[in-house]
């Protein structure tokens, strides 16, 4: 009799694998062809995924493209170029499910126009118009156009890439409408009679994603999913727990859901961006000094692991940065800071940064 561990790959053993975590951590489950239409959504970390794939020449769908001549720097301010449509950050599976159901006319959100002064905000994507809009009528018209764009995505998507961000959300008690931000963070008025805090559990998140999968595959039966978990800790929690404990809980639940989905379905692949950035082996070197924001190196390390597995078919392009960043990852594993790209990625749009501002 021999031990069942004998003969396993080096990646199965901590001693051999932890020294170079970027190598072989991710093995793709299926190919992504450059011609495949990719749809991206999720929490703010997902913006990096969309951007990298676009730069790599993948066919990332964009149902609400940047208006001609709007400069790139301004585009993200208005929610363009971040994802496949201007839905802004989608932090929870429930928020995603709600959006798809709304786009298909199966759900009518309530209390979704919030006011700040004389400006009106779409509470379901409050960050896409930095100053809000002039009237409720205008918010409704913009949302209508947005939902049409989301519907068009559902007709084209081949691979849906979604990043789970949070388990915590705020919702309207009566209708169950969930929001990406608490009332009064960007706009609106917080009324505890109307709104409540919710911390979704494993079953709720798992079931929500099953419904998302069903909706997508109803139109695109061969659609596949790549799911990730955002390595970005919570800015704040309303759970009564310490924010560190709340973060660990939230990420653990999301990671468990992602793992379960990936184990259960052949068409769902889990990409371990969370492990690549937040794992022990990096000694937090992929975080900025606030231990929350992910460094450019961290993003590059994660994305290189992804693109090294999904090299465009027929392309001679070898992802050089994958090798370079793998080297950096080794540095990180040895406890030294990597040397490239020390600058902060200020382009990522996160509503939860506002929470941070509120806490001061």
């Amino acid at each position, binding site marked *: 009799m021999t031990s069942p561990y004998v003969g396993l790959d080096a990646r199965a053993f901590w001693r051999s694998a932890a020294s170079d975590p970027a190598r072989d951590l991710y093995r793709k489950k299926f190919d992504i062809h450059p011609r495949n239409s990719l749809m991206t959504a999720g929490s703010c970390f997902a913006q990096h995924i969309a951007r990298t794939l676009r730069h790599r020449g993948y066919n990332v769908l964009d149902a609400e493209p940047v208006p001609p*001549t*709007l400069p790139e720097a*301004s585009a993200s301010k*208005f929610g363009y170029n971040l994802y496949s449509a201007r839905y802004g950050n989608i932090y929870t599976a429930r928020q995603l499910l709600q959006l798809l159901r709304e786009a298909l006319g199966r759900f009518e959100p309530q209390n979704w126009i919030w006011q700040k002064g004389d400006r009106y905000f779409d509470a379901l994507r409050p960050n896409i118009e930095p100053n809000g809009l002039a009237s409720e009528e205008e918010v409704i018209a913009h949302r209508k156009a947005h939902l049409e764009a989301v519907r068009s995505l559902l007709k084209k998507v081949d691979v849906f890439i979604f990043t789970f961000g949070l388990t915590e959300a705020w919702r309207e008690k009566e209708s169950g409408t969930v929001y990406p931000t608490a009332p009064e963070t960007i706009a609106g008025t917080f009324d505890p009679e109307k709104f409540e805090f919710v911390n979704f559990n494993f079953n709720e998140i798992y079931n929500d994603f099953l419904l998302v999968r069903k909706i997508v595959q109803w139109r695109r039966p061969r659609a596949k999913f790549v799911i990730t978990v955002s390595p970005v800790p919570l800015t704040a929690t309303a759970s009564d727990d310490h924010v560190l404990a709340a973060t660990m809980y939230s990420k653990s639940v999301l990671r468990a859901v992602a793992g379960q989905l990936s184990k259960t379905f052949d068409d769902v692949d889990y990409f371990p961006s969370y492990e690549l950035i937040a794992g022990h082996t990096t000694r937090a070197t992929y975080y900025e000094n606030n231990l929350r924001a992910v460094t450019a190196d961290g993003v590059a390390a994660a994305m290189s692991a992804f693109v090294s597995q999904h090299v465009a078919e027929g392309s001679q392009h070898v992802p050089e940065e994958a090798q370079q960043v793998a080297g950096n990852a080794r540095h990180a594993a040895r406890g030294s800071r990597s040397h490239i790209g020390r600058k902060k990625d200020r382009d990522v749009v996160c509503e939860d940064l506002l929470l941070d501002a509120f806490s001061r």
Partner: protein
Amino acid sequence: MTISIIGNSHLVALKLADGDFPWACSYFWSSGFNLRDVIVEDGKLVGGTKRLRRLLAEQSIKLGKNVQKEIELKTSSAFIVVGLGLSPMYLARAYNSVRLFNHVGRGMTVVSADCLEEILVAQLRSTTAFKIARLLRENCDKPIVVVPQPAPMETAKTAVFREAQQRRNVKLWQPLFDTDVGEMLMPIYVRALARAADYERLNAVAQPEATLTGAFTRVEYQHAPDDHKHGSKSYGAHVLGALKREIEIIGIEAPVLERSSSDSRSVPERGEVAPVRSSLWSLSAMAASLARMREKKARFLSRPR
């Protein structure tokens, strides 16, 4: 105290009306976008190419002494940059691809007023007018005011054009034909102009509201019946009035003027520097120059191909 006015043909309206402008003005003029080649050399704004230098020298000789072939930056109290691509045309262009929610039709992209403004800011900053203003700003700390060319004359809506380019322009402006639409959009353009100027530490004077009907210039401010682009003397007077207010806000005091009974022209009081008037400026020479350009263009267009 001299104010330098830099521009293309849209400067004519201001020149026509500068009789009551309290400051002495010197002009730096070349047609179309010739001035895109200006540079600053030894503290002077000069043509950056041989051709432009020659053109500027010729204009100066032909049109009079207050038409300069170069501008010494330290001798001017302020600079006014007129026309040179700074135009509500960018609004028309943008509105052919995006719309505000209440004008949106099938297949069109709906954007917010803020987003449209952002588009315009970027476009306006890329104009020759802004490039020159930026160049001036890099080389001096004096007030610089940008002044756009007027919106097209309302006669352009119904005029019959022979040239394909003109017909294309009319088509471009079509979404703004409706006066209500124009009235809704022009404030966005004006805000964008102010913001664009602010970015570059400049000042801007938009087209006076009284001269507008929607997104077009009222017919009474038309330079000539068949000219759908240029403003008249009374248009120039409106703009100069707005400029005067702006310059005073900037902090340059207007010399106090009094009118003599025999001469309707104003003269300086208290021994202030007398505004240089346009006795040597030959308006007819300038008009003739514009007419020659038009003829040349027409000849070019009618050439057998």
